[in-house]
């Protein structure tokens, strides 16, 4: 049996993990395969072989380039090992048009996809999230566990376990930065008072090898020791062991079934020729928008408006009453350090989540221009020493999301032009919910020794959260062309399975990628089980 996986991001990695357990199955991965530049990769490699104290300054400069401000958006675009390769156009962004200030870097062409640059948040969805889904969290538990066993994982049992079980052996997190540590200590001391305001907290749960962290502070710009998970690590292992045949440099243009057998047409980036690949099963894992475009192009969904549900992102900076002793990102990891969860119902369905990030050098650029003036530098430093940046998410049912339409491509060898537009409704609801979040946090903040910086609280533009999907949501009784069945199949396909967030029935505010991987693993595992009979 031959299985073809399109893409090499987290969903694709999860499928590969599930399928690779069947020794008689050939696995081929078709991917655009954009890579980190050689110079940057060489610097990363040199650094990975020595302690931070022995790093060459030039190497450090190359790979620690901080985020770059992007037009229209409050948050800058991250750089990883000094490169924009997870966001760069390797052909996969051809024909992407955006209206209304949306983000155009919505499909990654990188080997490993956006997991090269993600926040590494790793929590299961709450049980009640699945009230809107055609299967339960219990049915996904073995897949969550399989993924958590296959990726690095650092987590600790705390109040968050009331909604999000750990479900796997985990390293402890490395020591936290000063401000987050102090905030969590205050929470511990005033837990009942904080929870009375409808706020609970716990340490971050991350796809990283916490036990090996050397606290060099470079997490946000790329861990030189590869301690933060990327889907590319899974593929590196599977390719090295001969379990996966990886075919890079190919951009999938259409997928379908011919005489009952699935195929994929893809354009070779080197020859520009369109080639056809056949398999017994095809798993489509191009990221929610990449997959949506591939399906729309393959089934001729021209000029139809498809709604993408998105968990809207918001920014909420906090200032601590006491600051760090020294303004530096060294001596700590700099990924998310704690999570704030605000339940809005008893079951745990309507949850809002905020990730707390400590100081890192990218924040220097975010200071108001006035405070960058040398005369006021001391004030700026004092503020930065007290700053913790909260990056929050609302569930998709309180978020506007956005719409996407496709046009017929000019020729066979091109991707269908894709236009993203803001949804006409939903923003008022987001703002109303965000105000409710702010009200709770203002009441809880004194017990945590912080204050939210209210003028800086802002909703990000649609598409900016990267937590979007639900274009072909799973359903027990899928509507033709609008929904997929529980194995991610859109009519009329029987052996082509969509496995990324495009098949999510909803996008909760809680962390995203682990559930994408677990669901992709569930689909692939079930398909393999059914095939074996």
């Amino acid at each position, binding site marked *: 049996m031959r299985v073809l996986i399109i893409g090499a991001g987290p969903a694709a990695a999860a499928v590969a993990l599930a399928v690779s357990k069947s020794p008689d199955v050939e696995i081929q991965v078709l991917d655009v395969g954009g890579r980190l530049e050689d110079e940057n990769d060489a610097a990363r490699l040199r650094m990975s072989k020595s302690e931070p104290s022995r790093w060459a300054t030039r190497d450090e400069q190359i790979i620690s380039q901080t985020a770059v401000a992007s037009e229209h958006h409050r948050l800058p675009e991250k750089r990883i090992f000094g490169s924009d390769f997870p966001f760069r156009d390797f052909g996969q962004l051809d024909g992407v048009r955006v209206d209304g200030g949306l983000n155009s870097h919505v499909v990654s062409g990188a080997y490993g996809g956006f997991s090269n640059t993600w926040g590494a948040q790793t929590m299961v969805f709450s049980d009640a999230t699945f009230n809107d889904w055609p299967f339960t969290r219990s049915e996904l538990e073995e897949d969550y566990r399989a993924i958590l066993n296959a990726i690095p994982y650092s987590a600790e049992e705390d109040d968050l*376990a009331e909604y999000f*079980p750990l479900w796997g052996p985990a390293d402890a997190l490395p020591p936290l930065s000063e401000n987050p540590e102090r905030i969590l200590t205050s929470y511990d001391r005033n837990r009942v008072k904080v929870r009375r305001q409808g706020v609970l907290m716990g340490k971050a749960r991350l796809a990283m090898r916490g036990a090996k962290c050397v606290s060099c502070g470079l997490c946000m710009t790329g861990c030189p020791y590869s301690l933060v998970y990327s889907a590319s690590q899974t593929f590196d292992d599977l390719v090295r062991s001969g379990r996966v045949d990886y075919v890079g440099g190919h951009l999938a243009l259409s997928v379908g079934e011919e005489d009952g057998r699935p195929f994929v047409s893809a354009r070779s980036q080197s020859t520009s020729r369109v080639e056809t690949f056949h398999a017994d099963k095809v798993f489509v894992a191009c990221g929610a928008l990449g997959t949506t475009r591939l399906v729309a192009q393959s089934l001729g969904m021209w000029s139809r408006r498809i709604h993408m549900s998105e968990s809207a992102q918001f920014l909420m900076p906090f200032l601590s009453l006491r600051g760090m002793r020294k303004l530096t990102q060294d001596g700590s990891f700099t990924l998310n350090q704690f999570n704030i969860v605000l339940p809005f119902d008893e079951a745990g369905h309507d949850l809002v989540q905020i990730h707390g990030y400590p100081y890192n050098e990218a924040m220097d650029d975010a200071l108001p221009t006035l405070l960058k003036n040398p005369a006021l530098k001391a004030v700026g430093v004092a503020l930065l020493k007290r700053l913790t940046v909260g990056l929050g998410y609302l569930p998709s049912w309180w978020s506007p999301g956005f719409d996407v339409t496709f046009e017929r491509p000019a020729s066979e060898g091109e991707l269908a032009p894709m236009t993203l537009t803001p949804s006409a409704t939903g923003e008022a609801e987001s703002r109303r919910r965000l105000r409710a979040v702010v009200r709770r946090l203002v009441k809880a903040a004194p017990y945590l020794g912080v204050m939210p910086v209210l003028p800086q609280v802002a909703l990000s533009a649609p598409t900016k959260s990267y937590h979007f999907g639900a274009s072909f949501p799973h359903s027990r009784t899928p509507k033709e062309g609008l929904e997929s069945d529980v194995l991610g199949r859109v009519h009329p396909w029987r052996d082509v399975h969509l496995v990324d967030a495009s098949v999510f029935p909803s996008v909760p505010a809680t962390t995203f990628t682990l559930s994408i991987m677990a669901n992709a693993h569930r689909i692939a595992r079930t398909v393999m089980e059914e095939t074996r009979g």
Partner: protein
Amino acid sequence: MAKAHGQLIGVTGSNGYLGRSLVAALRKENLDVVEYRRVALDADASEKTRVLDLGAPMDPSVFEGVTCLVHGAWDLRETDPRRAWERNVEGSKRLLDAALDAGVQRVIFLSSMSAYFGTKQDYGLMKLAVERAVLEANQVVVRPGLVYGAESGGMAATLSKLARLPVIPVFRGAHQFTLHVDDFLGAMVTLIVSDDVPSAVVGLAHEPPTPFNEIMVALAPNERGPAKTVSIPWHPLLTTLRVAERLNVPLPVRSDSLLGLVRPAPNVPGRDVASELGLSFRPFSVTGE
């Protein structure tokens, strides 16, 4: 119902009114019961009792042989919220993990109607946190209403004492979901012996609620003639109680309990589960009729 025999039922909190009544009811049903207590009893009683302290590390071996564990223990002596959390919430989570590790098939957590979403009561918040852990472990939560009966204990006993005052204080708009002790015991036996009980929060109480002044008038001694009530504003009383607690003045009612009376649960959860299990709850009457 099926599992009546061959079971060993563990009950924590059997010193309290509900736990004590439950142990007696289970033994009356010829069920084997082991009671968990903080301190060891004399040798004669030791076969039917085991030692368990919520504040101490939990040894799974204390649950050996137990098929169903009813967890009702809650240390109300601790008034500092941080220490109360550590002892009751973290202790209950440790107990839950240890019981499940030891192979206990069903854990039933005795929560409270104070544990509703949005409660401001410390007690309710702590019970709610344990409820979440119990539900995450696919176990059962029950929320009994205000339990009354021939020999009331707990809050009902406190209210009975207050009802003996020459003038009975009542709070405008306050109400309680009530539960006769016999209905509580019947429901618990059903939850323990039934084969299929879903992981859910099951409210054990009569609905609709009974106005607080009706409860107090009914609890007043008959021989004194018609009860006299006075409606008092609860905010100043709450502040007074909180100040007194800060000054370590011993009080018959805690500020947190007052909050539970004046800000009760909005409804009884899990009515569908109760109905499927055939549980019913009589309307409030001190005679139990």
